[in-house]
């Protein structure tokens, strides 16, 4: 098949944009925790980048998009292990082209989705999880929960338009409402319950230590999301353009939805609210980016911002410590987006004269995704709890997980940590002082 250079350029860019989202998330989350655990928070994202980035080329692609589907649930991990098997590279080493795009570009693009999805979950267990356990979790979860879901929805599996529900109506998940957001949001809920609450939850404020970082993170997420959604059009064309405009409009409307809601309820429009509204709008538009009109996208963003603003309070009511509101933002807005497609889709939505079928099928795939994700995550989480354990010691949690686990503090504090200099160097010689080092040693 012939190469479409324009498409390929766009997909290379899209992959780069989505890759940037995970560090963006690290900043978004990192700014939101207290100063004593920002590094650990960011390391959960960077750790996921390390593990999932390697795992994806080994068996992730094969399990998601391999040709040997196992009951529509996942594909054979060995078929294209290490990207072998002839579907990505031909025998002579040249790249295989499919629909104008080198398959290897698609591998890169898809890998970035796997990374960010796993990283999203980490917000639910901020400040308290063992780093080693998290690293093992990332490998297990991406393998057992993400790759199968990607296969089911996008790889021609159970929840795709080749699956059983498609007889009701073709399910719509443009860029990952189920695979990414409902999947991660549900996993976050389960993990928050299994790992348990932070010491002081509901009593101590635990406010964001650095809100400009949070806003920077939200901005990088927005920027990267263009690759996520408009890239999912798999074309440098009008559909990508529509997805682009819908994405941006929903993010804008998400800001307004969240700010208006909190202004009315609390009397203040906060910067944390603006940043959160951006993400809520973006999450909601993700499954719908190609199916709505821009005005529909604005409406969806507005609703998602408002609903998420209300939903983040639920954790206090029900007592689970979803520390950075992965449930309130990703699960809730992911559901809002996935289900409202049934109303707002210009092709088949209730508001546009469609039947109720689309709504039903959207609710169904959302439900199935929740159940699957919840069940798989519960098994993994409990297994890890019983073996490696999830929690750092209480002293480490109170004193700060950054120092305890990573042996670092995020910021230099003069008169604080950077003070003693008994640096024990391997074989540091008596270090003959250079010309400039003579004075000040007075007395």
């Amino acid at each position, binding site marked *: 098949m012939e190469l479409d250079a324009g498409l390929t350029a766009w997909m290379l860019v899209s992959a780069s944009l989505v890759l940037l989202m995970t560090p963006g998330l690290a900043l978004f989350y990192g700014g939101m925790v207290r100063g004593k655990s920002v590094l650990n928070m960011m390391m959960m994202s960077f750790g996921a980048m390390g593990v999932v980035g390697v795992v994806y080329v080994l068996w992730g692609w094969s399990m998601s998009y391999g040709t040997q589907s196992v009951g529509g649930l996942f594909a054979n991990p060995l078929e294209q292990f290490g990207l072998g098997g002839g579907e990505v590279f031909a025998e002579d080493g040249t790249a295989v082209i499919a629909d104008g795009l080198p398959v290897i570009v698609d591998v890169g693009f898809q890998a970035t989705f796997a990374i960010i999805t796993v990283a999203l979950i980490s917000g639910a267990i901020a400040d308290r999880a063992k780093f080693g356990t998290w690293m093992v979790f990332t490998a297990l979860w991406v393998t057992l929960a993400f790759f199968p879901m990607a296969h089911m929805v996008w790889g021609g599996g159970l929840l795709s338009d080749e699956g059983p529900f498609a007889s009701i109506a073709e399910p719509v998940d443009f860029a990952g409402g189920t695979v990414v957001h409902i999947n991660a949001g549900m996993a976050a809920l389960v993990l928050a319950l299994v790992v348990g609450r932070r010491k002081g939850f509901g009593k101590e404020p635990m406010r964001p230590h650095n809100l400009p970082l949070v806003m920077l993170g939200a901005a990088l997420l927005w920027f990267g999301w263009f690759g996520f959604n408009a890239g999912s059009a798999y074309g440098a064309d009008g559909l990508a353009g529509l997805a682009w405009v819908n994405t941006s409009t929903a993010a804008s409307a998400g800001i307004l939805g969240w700010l208006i809601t909190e202004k009315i309820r609390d009397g203040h429009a906060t910067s944390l609210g603006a940043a959160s509204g951006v993400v809520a709008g973006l999450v909601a538009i993700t499954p719908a980016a190609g199916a709505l009109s821009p005005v529909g996208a604005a409406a969806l963003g507005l609703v998602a911002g408002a609903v998420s603003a209300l939903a983040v309070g639920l954790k206090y009511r029900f007592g689970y410590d979803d520390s950075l509101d992965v449930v309130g933002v990703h699960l809730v807005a992911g559901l809002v987006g996935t289900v409202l497609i049934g109303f707002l889709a210009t092709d088949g939505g209730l508001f546009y004269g469609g039947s109720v079928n689309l709504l039903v099928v959207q609710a169904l795939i959302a439900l199935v995704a929740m159940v699957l994700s919840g069940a798989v995550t519960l098994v993994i989480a409990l297994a890890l709890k019983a073996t490696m354990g999830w929690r750092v010691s209480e002293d480490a949690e109170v004193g700060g997980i950054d120092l305890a686990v990573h042996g670092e503090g995020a910021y230099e504090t003069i008169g604080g*940590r950077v003070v*003693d200099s008994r*640096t024990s*160097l391997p074989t540091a010689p008596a270090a003959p002082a250079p010309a400039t080092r003579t004075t000040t040693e007075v007395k």
Partner: protein
Amino acid sequence: MTKLVTGIIQPHRLDDVKSALEAFGVRGMTVSEASGYGRQRGHTEVYRGAEYTVDLVPKVRIEVLVADEDAPSVTKVIVGAAQTGKIGDGKVWVVPVEDVARVRTGEHGIDAL
């Protein structure tokens, strides 16, 4: 006459100490950040191939001006609320004060508290 009671405590005990003082009847205090050096050791950090120890530990300083007669009780209240029984819990000390003024009104002495 008044005294100044100064406490160096663990940061995470600040809330409880503040509540305890308030319960006792203290209506004002001044809080600041500090670093402590003592029996409680700091930690080791590794910076790209170099290892070093940091022997200062984050602490919070509380200062309360009180009437002479309240100094011992206030000391006790702070000690009580800040105590965890672990090394590094901190110190409380009392210093004589010769004059106090409230900036807003210019009042002096016990009325200025």
